[in-house]
């Protein structure tokens, strides 16, 4: 057994005497009715020393093929970026890692100021004046945004682009059942949201329209056109965005979006097989009192010193309970710290340079790949860091061949889009060099060629 308790035999004797009971069991037996006592040890493996637990977790890690083990072009919502060492260092400082939510601001100025700085950075990126201090992650941020829209205008319906991440749409569907919003999907037209279809579906019953920038197929959406259409009907515009593209892409807040939300992982957070990362949530001034989650605000102390507090708490569950704007409590403060440290590290010029590098490499990769036999662009729209292809071969089989060559060629779109059963989504980051891309071209080209010449085998389960 390993443990972190500290009760010695002497402690125990003194403590029991002080309490006035004869044994620890007594405390439990007095409190827990006999009918619901377990009465047997739990059936779990025996505890192990630290070295054994380390070995076990290493064993499991080695059963995974991580981005450290292959050249990966997998993206689709989370991206293999370089996490700078200072992010790890700061996130692992006890003073940031171990406190609770800053309920006592006098001894939480570090965390509170980090939130304030984070909010500032998110506002600047998104082009909106208000940000909260984080929500869970990207897809649930979309669901939370639609709920906020519901609270704001009580309209029964939201429209969501099919270019929005499938997980975001699925999450929205799930949550909307709860708060009673009807979700209507707007299809794609050649890689981007079908604006005509959107206009057609819009009405004064529509509380919000939701799009993603760049969209799931990597394409740049015309946010302004989207906003104009929606605003004509008084609908809120919710834009899910990839924050790391916002050094080169116009801020959605400057293109009419009322809410800009999204997945923050690309900002200095690990992949972690999907989490924890953070979601961001920014809005126009009007919605400041409808936001979910913690918000840090600047103020002064009794002596006039600058300080920070959790503010506008009357929105929140612990004050307003059933009337709260959200039920969120614990969110992702530490991950958001990682985000703002990353953005500070990247800096004003760096975020543009990084965006430009991704843009150029993505263009290069797209053109090189599309020139392969049996490979074509799925759409021709401008992209930033990810793009979709069509393969004239079984995508899964091609991916399997590439994997055998140490290359993860991307995401099989058929996993989420029936209409793109032949689709492959390829993501580029600053970690994928031209040499990596050339390798992908070589490996994918060979795999497609092999699949096209191979007699199509029966699919065996």
């Amino acid at each position, binding site marked *: 057994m390993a443990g972190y308790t500290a009760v010695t035999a002497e402690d125990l004797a003194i403590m029991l005497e002080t309490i006035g009971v004869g044994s620890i069991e007594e405390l439990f037996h007095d409190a827990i009715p006999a009918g619901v006592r377990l009465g047997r040890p739990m059936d779990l493996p025996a505890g192990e020393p630290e070295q054994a637990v*380390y070995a076990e977790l290493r064993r499991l890690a080695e059963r995974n093929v991580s981005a450290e083990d292959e050249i990966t072009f997998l993206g689709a919502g989370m991206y293999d970026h370089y996490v700078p060492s200072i992010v790890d260092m700061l996130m692992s400082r006890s003073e940031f890692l171990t406190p609770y939510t800053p309920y006592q601001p006098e001894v939480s100025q570090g965390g509170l100021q980090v939130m304030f700085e984070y909010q500032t950075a998110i506002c600047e990126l998104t082009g909106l004046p208000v940000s909260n201090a984080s929500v869970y992650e990207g897809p649930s941020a979309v669901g939370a945004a639609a709920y906020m829209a519901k609270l704001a205008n009580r309209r029964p319906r939201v429209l969501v682009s099919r270019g929005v991440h499938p997980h975001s749409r699925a999450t929205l569907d799930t949550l909307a059942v709860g708060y009673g919003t009807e979700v209507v999907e707007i299809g794609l037209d050649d890689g981007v949201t079908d604006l005509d279809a959107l206009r057609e579906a819009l009405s004064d019953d529509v509380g919000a329209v939701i799009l993603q920038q760049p969209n799931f197929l990597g394409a740049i959406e015309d946010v302004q056109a989207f906003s104009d259409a929606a605003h004509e009907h008084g609908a809120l515009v919710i834009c899910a965005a990839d924050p790391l593209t916002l050094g080169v892409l116009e801020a959605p807040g400057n293109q009419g979006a009322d809410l800009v939300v999204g997945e923050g992982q690309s900002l200095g957070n690990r992949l972690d097989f999907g989490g924890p990362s953070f979601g961001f949530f920014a809005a126009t001034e009007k919605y400041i009192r409808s936001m979910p989650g913690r918000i840090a605000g600047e103020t002064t102390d009794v002596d006039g010193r600058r300080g920070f507090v959790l503010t506008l708490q009357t929105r929140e569950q612990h*004050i307003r309970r059933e009337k709260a704007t959200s039920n969120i409590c614990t969110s992702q403060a530490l991950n958001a710290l990682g985000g703002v440290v990353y953005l500070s590290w990247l800096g004003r010029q760096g975020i543009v340079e990084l965006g430009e590098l991704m843009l150029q490499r993505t263009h290069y990769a797209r053109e090189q790949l599309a020139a392969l036999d049996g490979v074509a662009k799925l759409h021709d729209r401008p992209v930033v860091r990810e793009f979709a292809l069509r393969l004239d071969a079984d995508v899964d089989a091609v991916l399997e061949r590439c994997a055998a060559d140490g290359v993860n060629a991307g995401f099989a779109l058929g996993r989420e889009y029936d209409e793109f059963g032949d689709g492959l989504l390829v993501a580029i980051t600053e970690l994928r060099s031209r040499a990596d891309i050339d390798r992908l071209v070589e490996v994918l080209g060979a795999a497609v060629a092999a699949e096209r010449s191979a007699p199509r085998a029966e699919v065996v389960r």
Partner: protein
Amino acid sequence: MSTLDSSQTKQQLERATTIFEKGAPGRRAFRAPDLDVPPVEGLIPPASRRAAPPRLPEASEPEIVRHYVNLSKRNFDLDSGFYPLGSCTMKHNPRLHERVAALPGHARMHPLQDPRRAQGALELMYGLQESLAEIAGLPHVSLQPSAGSHGELAGVLLTRAYHADRGEQRTKVLTPDSAHGTNPATVTMAGYEVVKVALDGAGGVDVDDLRAKAGTDVACLMLTNPSTLGIFDPNIEEIASIVHGVGATLYYDGANLNAIMGYSRPGDMGFDIVHFNLHKTFTQPHGGGGPGAGPIAVSDRIEPFLPRPQVVRRAPAVNGGRPTPPVFELDDDRPKSIGKLRGFQGNYGVFVRTYAYIRSLGAEGLQDVSEVSVLNANYLLARLREKVGDRLPLAFGERCMHEFVLSGAPMKKELGIRTLDLAKRLLDHGFHPPTVYFPLVVEEALLIEPTETETRETLDGFADAIAAIVAEAAEDPEIARNAPYTTPVRRLDEAGAAKRPRVRQTL
């Protein structure tokens, strides 16, 4: 003796400056990799191209490091001192967990990796599901929810799906007065009406009131047990049978599971759904407000509706006589599922830490956790009763589980200091205060949860500090009323902050 300014500490003298106020135009930490492909102009249509770079900080790496290291020193943290925040289970965060979570095979693992190449992650998640099921006494687990409140939302949505599947339309969810704010907030978000159940004189659910309110329009009872008063409800069996009797589901807010592991299980009490706070009971560091994870365990009748995907184990195939190892898969094919609550498979990094914790402690160790957490709470309670029992009486009963609630009402009346003042004054003693003004049912409440990882010496020191503050207030209440004095900033103007919110820096 003369100092820089004898009335202020060094930290107090430093005006807080943000990272945006540091650095200088042109400074930087990041250097981009060289552009290694032929550059092409105009790849982004002009209307979509950002005109000016976002005004992010411009600072060198040393400046950034120093800024955040110094900021960190303006936080109180668990690795530096006692943090008896009730309902939050501020127990020691083992660094082993950070080490294993950082292994590249976990940390740099893409969530959409082909499951055949993610067997380690899936095996871990499956193993964790099994362990949590055993701890909860409920057979099925979804790891997906991101925190306790997210688990609650999952639970109420599951309830909705369950009733809908049976063709029933129920409208109400019952929850007692002592419930955490997330409970009623969740109910609203999930489209139900909150109905409050009263407490009886001992701090438990008022069974008569429950019986009165439990009709067939009730979808669910949400209960925290032990409650936020630190009381294991003695009528738990009756409560369960009343709720079952009307066909509603029973939701167990597991924030307080730290008190009962190995002693009692929500499933055995008749509950259908329980959430775990892996960031409370299972040592995920709180990170100053997350991340966490809020897995749920459910009964058979709820299982069909669990979020997708679920991690499943395919029976090991027998391959020419030699059994192959079991294969783990992500099962997305769940026709009755409520769907997804978030992207991907949940906060895997938190699962790694929890898995490591459960493997470190085992059944015996987890039971020891509960034993010592209850022992420590009762010891601290006894010490406080002995010292300040008249001014800060226990709100209900005689003993407690892993936490307890004192009322500051007599102190307020007799000494003229409020619970808030006591809390602030504790900061000067180097302790983090308990949770204050919660649960709402106790006047001037102090909710104290020492956790199992604290020593007796620390508990004694805390009791002494409380006693000293109470004694001091008897002499001069102004001292506490104006506390704290030694913190980086003193009492802050929260009302002003809310009135004219400044939630970002003007750049």
